[in-house]
């Protein structure tokens, strides 16, 4: 119900440390389900806390619906208690001395809502978040999942235009994560609230968000849909951060890399220091050689339950060097043995090229390579963990 505009925001805690957030700008549209993703210490939680008003800016502006909440140059700061933004803390931060109903009721009381209205709203929230029967319990008597539901109920009861979530699924076990994920998606659709959440967990980001902002060292690396981020990583950091197991990186000047580049029709000479990225699931192994394949040795096969990780060594016998380590994932049972020699083929969408500085180099405007029918598995880019989604 609200859009958020971050304009060149920065946060510096001390002068002698690099900024926690460095000149980040982004537009979070009305009704978006936005994720700020990055490793710990990348500044993502700081961004969330700055939107909530719990931290103030060192530079730039945060505005909601064009109304500035925090603007350094204009000297504007609206305190968090006046922003009417919902925030669910990673620790849930339930008030330990209040029962579940009192926790939910507290904010409504501050709004000046009448007793009947409050009770009605609390009852509605309790039903909606399926925490019936827990009304009179204290937070210490609740499980982690229940606490999170209460924290959500407490925030949603205020009917905020913007909902901020700090690592919403990270403290939950696998089964709860799935049901909570479904819950959050449903709430998003039902309320149409603008949701921003931060996480270091790419699975959480990919499965929940409609848009992802990838952060590193306080800087915004890429902003895009989950597919954008995965299929067209803006730089080497994004490519390596997203994907599990991580993308394979080999120097672009090796003969193996050259072969892969030619296979997808790349004609130029890659610049010095460039790196070739290969998604593990975008590799196909075959028994027969072709012009566009590279010889490899299977070094290890690791079953992960329904999927397999195959570790390969490429290029070791070329010049007596150690060669390069490649990881391949597949969901069909592998018919290779350890030590067996195979030929590696790549699918065009799985290949990425990055300059020595880490920027993405275009492989486009290159003629598409024919994809043979035998590797239909490569036709659809599969995110390795998507299988988790299928289980109810």
């Amino acid at each position, binding site marked *: 119900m609200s859009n958020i505009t971050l304009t*060149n925001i920065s946060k510096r805690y001390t002068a002698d440390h690099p900024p926690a957030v460095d000149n980040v700008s982004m537009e979070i549209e009305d009704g978006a389900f936005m994720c700020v993703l990055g490793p710990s210490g990348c500044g993502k939680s700081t961004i969330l806390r700055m939107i909530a008003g719990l931290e103030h800016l060192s530079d730039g502006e945060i505005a909601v619906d064009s109304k500035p909440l925090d603007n350094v*140059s204009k000297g504007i700061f609206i305190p968090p208690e006046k922003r009417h933004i919902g925030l669910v803390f990673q620790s849930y931060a339930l008030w330990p001395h209040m029962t579940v109903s009192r926790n939910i009721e507290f904010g409504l009381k501050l709004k000046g809502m009448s007793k009947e209205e409050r009770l009605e709203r609390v009852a509605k929230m309790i039903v909606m978040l399926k925490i019936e029967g827990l009304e009179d319990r204290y937070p210490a008597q609740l499980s982690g999942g229940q606490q999170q539901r209460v924290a959500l109920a407490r925030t949603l009861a205020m009917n905020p235009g913007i909902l901020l979530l700090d690592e919403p699924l990270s403290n939950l076990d696998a089964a709860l994560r799935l049901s909570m994920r479904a819950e959050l998606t449903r709430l998003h659709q039902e309320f149409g609230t603008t949701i921003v959440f931060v996480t270091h967990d790419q699975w959480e980001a990919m499965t929940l968000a409609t848009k992802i902002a990838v952060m590193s060292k306080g800087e915004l690396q890429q902003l895009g849909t989950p597919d954008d981020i995965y299929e067209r990583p803006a730089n080497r950091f994004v490519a390596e951060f997203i994907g599990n197991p991580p993308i394979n990186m080999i120097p672009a000047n090796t003969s193996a890399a050259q072969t892969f580049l030619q296979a997808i029709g790349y004609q130029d000479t890659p610049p010095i220091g460039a790196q070739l990225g290969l998604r593990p699931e975008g590799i196909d192994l075959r028994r027969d050689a072709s012009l566009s394949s590279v010889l490899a040795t299977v070094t290890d096969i690791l079953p992960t339950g329904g999927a397999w990780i195959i570790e390969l060594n490429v290029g070791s016998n070329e010049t007596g060097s150690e060669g390069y380590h490649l990881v391949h994932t597949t969901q069909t049972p592998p018919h290779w043995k350890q030590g067996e020699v195979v030929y590696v083929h790549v699918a065009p969408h799985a290949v990425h090229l990055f300059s020595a500085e880490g920027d993405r180099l275009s492989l486009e405007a290159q003629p598409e390579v024919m994809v043979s029918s035998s590797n239909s598995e490569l036709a659809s880019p599969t995110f390795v963990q998507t299988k988790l989604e299928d289980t109810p």
Partner: protein
Amino acid sequence: MIAVTDSKHLSPMRRLRHKLVIAQRDPTLLIGLILLFIFAWLIAAPILNVMLEIMTVQSGDEMRTGTEAGGITTYYLERVFSSRMSSIIFWRPLWNTLMVAFTSMILAMVIGAILAWLLVRTNLMGRRWLSTALIIPFMLPAWTFALAWTTLFKNATIGGQPGWAEAMGLQLPDWVSYGAFPTIVIMTLNYIPFVILLVGNALRRLDSQLEEAGQMLGASKGSVALSIVFPLMRPAIMSAALLIFADAIGEFSVPYVLGLPVQFETLATSLYRAIGTQQNGVAAVFAGVILVVGMATLALDTWMMREARRFAIIGSKGAMERRQSLGILKWPAFSIALLMFFISVVVPMGALALSTVMHLPGRFNLSNFTLDYWIGTNLDTIALRNGILLSSEFWNAAWSSVRIVGSASICAGILGLLTGYIVLRSPLRSVSITLRQITFFPYLVPGIAFAAAFLTLFAVPHGPIPALYGTPIILFLALVADQMPFASRAGISAMTQLGSDVEDSARVAGAGWLRRMFSIILPIQRNALVTAVLMPFISGIKGVSLFIILAVPATDVLTTFSIRLIDFNYTQAANAVVLMIALIALLGTLLINRLTGTGLAQGLES
């Protein structure tokens, strides 16, 4: 993406304006500054003032110094440090102070560490019960033991009723009855519980897997103790030793009760005497010396703690507790611990209690027992003709004790919690560091020196503040300031445990500062607040130093009342009053322990 503006080159004025707007929305900084102001006035100003007094000519000393009152002089320094009198008035008391403090510190450390180890690391019989029982002396005023000593071992050197030993026909030499020896014994007994608490806590945190790892690698038990346990315990041991030493330097009541008959003076008693004889300049010098020694000791402690942090014990999370079997030493160890309990609790308390129901000391026949000193009427004494429980003087003193100490403790507790809040939440680090240090400062200043400092500052009117000497207000203020170390430590540790999320979530829910305080922080910290009030209350009610200097007959409290009874030689009544003080202190401590589990140990630790 929006083009980069040159926002990095904003003028400092703009940034300042933004900061001010933020500060205006959150009273944390403002409250921090107010607290700083209060403590500057209550803590820093008196101490600075006493330092100035050292160099200032006092009224009445114009002739001696040849300068008019208020001028600058080195007369007092010379008189104390380098005059013909200085060996008597200063060097001898200084030697006595250091000797007593050092000896009792060493003795307490050795005995206390052994007891701590027995209680925490071995299968000592009855250790649960003993670990409470052996702490009891800590809850009692130190001079209770001094009075018990005189009750038992007083000889004929001074008049009044004889001690029990004397009454039973034992002739005791002066050195047993008075002076350094009994002072050291009493102070040692009083500090042993402190060592048990501090060293015991450190031992409890020490993962016994560390010892086992040593043993697995082939080290003998002896070399494990020497090369693993002792180095890891060293910070706690050193810290306990220094805290005891700093406290012992300023101890007043024990040498006052035990030293007087043989002119055994320490710095604290000399200071008291100097104030009593209107030598304010000399008193300021004594206060200054006590201050400097105390501060140097605590500075050493801070420095050592910083060193110690370099080898903070890793992985205390999975700490295993394994107790060593005492085997053949089971009975001897138990007897030693039990003996300690008898020496430090049963004998002194028993002697005091019995003395209050006996006409003549040390005679155990039925006709000698009486309840007159508690509930008698029309006694044949000059003053105090009723038993203390029936005398209005006692109840007045008790009431004003509770009133003055109580209100000061409530005030200190609230200030302590607020200090904890600001220390953790202040947007300016400098404010939180200064607050943390200034509230701990009175700990460095022995009570007697602090009282002297208060006297010099508040005895005369300053600006809008009238002269406060002789009013309960000066006692109240001095108590608040003196108790801030305990109160602020309790507040800081409580707020550290709370974390900021709980308050932040209330903020996001729309609660302003006052609302957050009253609906979130205070209800959650209810127990911490009670501790922050009760700790100062106990320490205040049993304290002597502040009252003996700042109280006047109009503001009589239990401690000054009982000291007056001692001076009048009403031994039984004095002991009865002291027992009542001990009872209040004991009940209060038990209340804290009930409320917080390990409140006492925690309060000491942080």
